[in-house]
């Protein structure tokens, strides 16, 4: 024997089923560890006391009623997009076109508000905006789905490219609609008449959006979990040959599911324009079509868990904005902190599913932690 090889330092083994309490304990430990690392980085990089920076984050997110409402509004948008992704992701259809599907919804709503505002009753206009934008989002997702079902094209690339088509369309119409002339912006649509604007519930102008999104979330959860179609989606996602074996028409399920996915994105676009922003820009979705993908993954495609995840991400980003102004820190610094926290959240899933064994000195070892 030339050299005696040694036992490897670390073994990774798969865990047995973990209780949900255990899983949450690991998640909390990971978040605590993340905050600790953030604290160390903060002190090392800026010399500020970590507690005050964390306080700044919380202040940015929850510091005043207005801040809380804005947080709710932003979370609702993110949640809505993540919920829209849920059915397609459960089907293992990697829809990266959330951005475009939302944008095309904003475009249709804006167009109807601009061209039909005050020409037809307000309720009819709102209904048309709703139907139109949902349909537009559905088409934007349905086209790649049709190609996937028919010719097995790559859905990731196709949905991604549809985003640019949508953005360019909006850019084109903004030039046509710009007001005042030369500003390059559309400005508030129907500011004087509020035609096509969603009513606000009492004085809370963001509340309706939040409620609608929560309702959609619950409906989506029920649809995926308990309906026959939801079951078909899960079977197609896990194994297309099993689906064919029991006579599920895979093509039809793919297209139908993406119409739903895109439709919810279109709804999100409608809520943004008619509900809160009352204007259109090319950056109205602002990358949240992609952030929604992250939310969906972190929540493991469970719409109810998405509520928590989108709230967490919005707290982090609102807080980041706050500390960058109040402490004079660069926005990038906040991105670093957000990155650290996300990294730990993702890592927690690894520790939930796997277990590490370290080499022990003695021969006889208790191999279980």
């Amino acid at each position, binding site marked *: *024997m030339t050299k*005696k*090889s*040694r*036992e*490897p330092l670390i*073994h990774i*083994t*798969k*865990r*047995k*089923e973990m209780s949900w309490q255990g899983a949450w304990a690991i998640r909390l430990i990971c978040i605590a560890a993340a905050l600790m690392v953030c604290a160390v980085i903060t002190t090392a990089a800026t010399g500020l006391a970590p507690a005050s920076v964390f306080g700044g984050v919380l202040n940015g997110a929850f510091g005043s009623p207005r801040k809380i409402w804005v947080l709710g509004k932003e979370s609702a948008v993110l949640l809505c997009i993540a919920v829209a992704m849920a059915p397609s992701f459960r089907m293992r259809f990697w829809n990266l076109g959330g951005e475009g599907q939302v944008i095309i919804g904003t475009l249709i709503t804006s167009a109807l508000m601009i061209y039909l505002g005050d020409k037809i009753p307000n309720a009819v206009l709102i209904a048309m905006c709703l139907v139109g934008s949902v349909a537009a989002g559905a088409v934007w997702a349905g086209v790649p789905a049709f190609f996937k079902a028919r010719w097995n094209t790559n859905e990731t690339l196709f949905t991604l490219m549809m985003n640019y088509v949508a953005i360019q369309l909006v850019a084109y119409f903004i030039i046509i609609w710009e007001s005042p002339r030369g500003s390059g912006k559309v400005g508030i649509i129907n500011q004087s008449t509020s035609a096509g604007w969603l009513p606000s519930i009492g004085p809370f102008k963001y509340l309706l959006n939040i409620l609608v999104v929560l309702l959609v979330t619950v409906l989506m959860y029920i649809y995926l979990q*308990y*309906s*026959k*179609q*939801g*079951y*078909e989606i*899960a*079977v197609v996602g*896990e*194994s297309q*040959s*099993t689906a*064919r*074996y*029991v*006579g*599920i*028409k895979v093509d039809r399920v793919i297209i139908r599911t993406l119409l739903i996915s895109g439709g919810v994105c279109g709804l999100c676009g409608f809520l943004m324009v008619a509900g809160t922003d009352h204007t259109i820009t090319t950056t109205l979705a602002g990358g949240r079509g992609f952030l929604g993908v992250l939310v969906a993954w972190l929540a493991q495609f469970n719409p109810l868990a998405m509520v928590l995840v989108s709230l967490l991400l919005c707290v982090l980003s609102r807080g980041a904005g706050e500390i960058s102004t109040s402490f004079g820190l660069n926005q990038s610094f906040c991105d670093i902190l957000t990155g650290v926290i996300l990294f730990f959240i993702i890592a927690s899933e690894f520790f939930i599913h796997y277990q590490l*064994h370290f080499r022990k000195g003695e021969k*006889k*070892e208790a*191999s279980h932690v």
Partner: protein
Amino acid sequence: MDSRSIAVSMRGITKTFGATVANDDVSLDIYKGEILSLLGENGSGKTTLMNMLSGIYFPDSGQISINGQPVTISSPREAFEHGIGMIHQHFKLVDVFTAAENIVLGLEEKGKLDLKRAAARIREICDAYGFDVDPQQKIYDMSVSQKQTVEIVKVLYRGADILILDEPTAVLTPQETEKLFAVLRNMRRDGKTVVIITHKLHEVEEISDRVAVLRKGRYIGEMKTSETNAQEMTNMMVGREVTLNINRPEPKDVRPRIRVEHLTVRSEDKVLKLDDVSFTAFGGEILGIAGISGCGQKELLESIAGLQPVESGEISYLHDDGSAESLLGKDPQEIARLGVSLSFVPEDRLGMGLVGSMDLTDNMMLRSFRRGSSVFADRRGPQRLAERVVRELEVNTPGISTPVRRLSGGNVQKVLVGREIASAPTVLLSAYAVRGLDINSSYVIYDLLNQQKRKGVAVVYVGEDLDVLLELCDRILVLCGGKVSGIVDGPGADKSTVGLMMTRLGGEK
């Protein structure tokens, strides 16, 4: 036995995967120059134990010694350094490379790659043991048996003295198995040590010097093959008395059920898979389909089940009143809507018959979820069915909400067969229903098939173990290269005749 020296000694080996204890304090000696059969049911830990010897897994505790030296083997490379080579059930070859390229792949020899010298050495090895390998042949041109030979030569090329073969005969015809065994005997003569993992008892008796039995991860015992018999080995494996005869109840009330006429099928890349196949399957009998794997068995069953586009021919379902209904061009749902109750146990259990990540209830639902007009799926019925299948077929599972992927092969198959017969079918198609199953589970499946036969179901049984086909089936259709080589009666059929029919049309010499 004492006169021989110990090649490998494993002491107190324990290996766990999560809550599953795959090996529990196993101690096993392997002697130089012997052929040892490692026998055990599925999930008894045979493969896991050998994987630890070949460096795939690392034991949680225990000590392995080679030639008296304590060693740690933490990678396949280190296993090779100790002269241990394993031939896995699933071959690990690069399809587009030649035999020689595959054999030298991963070897770190000094100097530049010299395929000529390698080919010469490969021929030397082949001559020494009686292999038949062309070093220049590409893997994709090879039969399963040739690929296996390449795997064995690969291991020998690396200088292995201890060869481990994991169920090597599962993919071979009887004739190929004979050839393999001849080679193994030559290796034994040359002083090599061979461990063969199997659960085919007649092979154990034919090839091995010694048998070691594992049950549920524990080492049960060992004996000389010459001093034991199939019954004793089975009892040790299962842990209780088991009868080894397969029942073949006399078919009664047989009536034509499925008629296949001049069926021709091409695969997606236009390869002819079935060529002018005609036969009739009768209700109340088991029709066996024999053939080397990949001879059109899969396409035949999938054509009947409505999953395979057909080029020409006709498949009809015959009702009790004799009227015929064409199944051609209909998908499984349309077939079901005709009132034809057709069940299908496909070869790929987790990839086609079941959804691995779903639990038992949701898998039961696959067949029934469309029932009723509600938009919501009924889980109550499938849940009761899952409970019934678990109870009646003695499925070993922590509960009905366990993902089926976590169950062992035999239990997965029980779940699948249980669901398929729950719909009271009139036709039951099964592909390799006992592949990878241990004796106990296999007999459960044979019994279930016989029960269906007694109920008047037309059972089609595609199998690979000729002994079983001959004992179980009333008639056997032999396929050879997509053509019907012949149909023989089960009782009185001769194994070597059927074996020849599998390799040559009609079985002529």
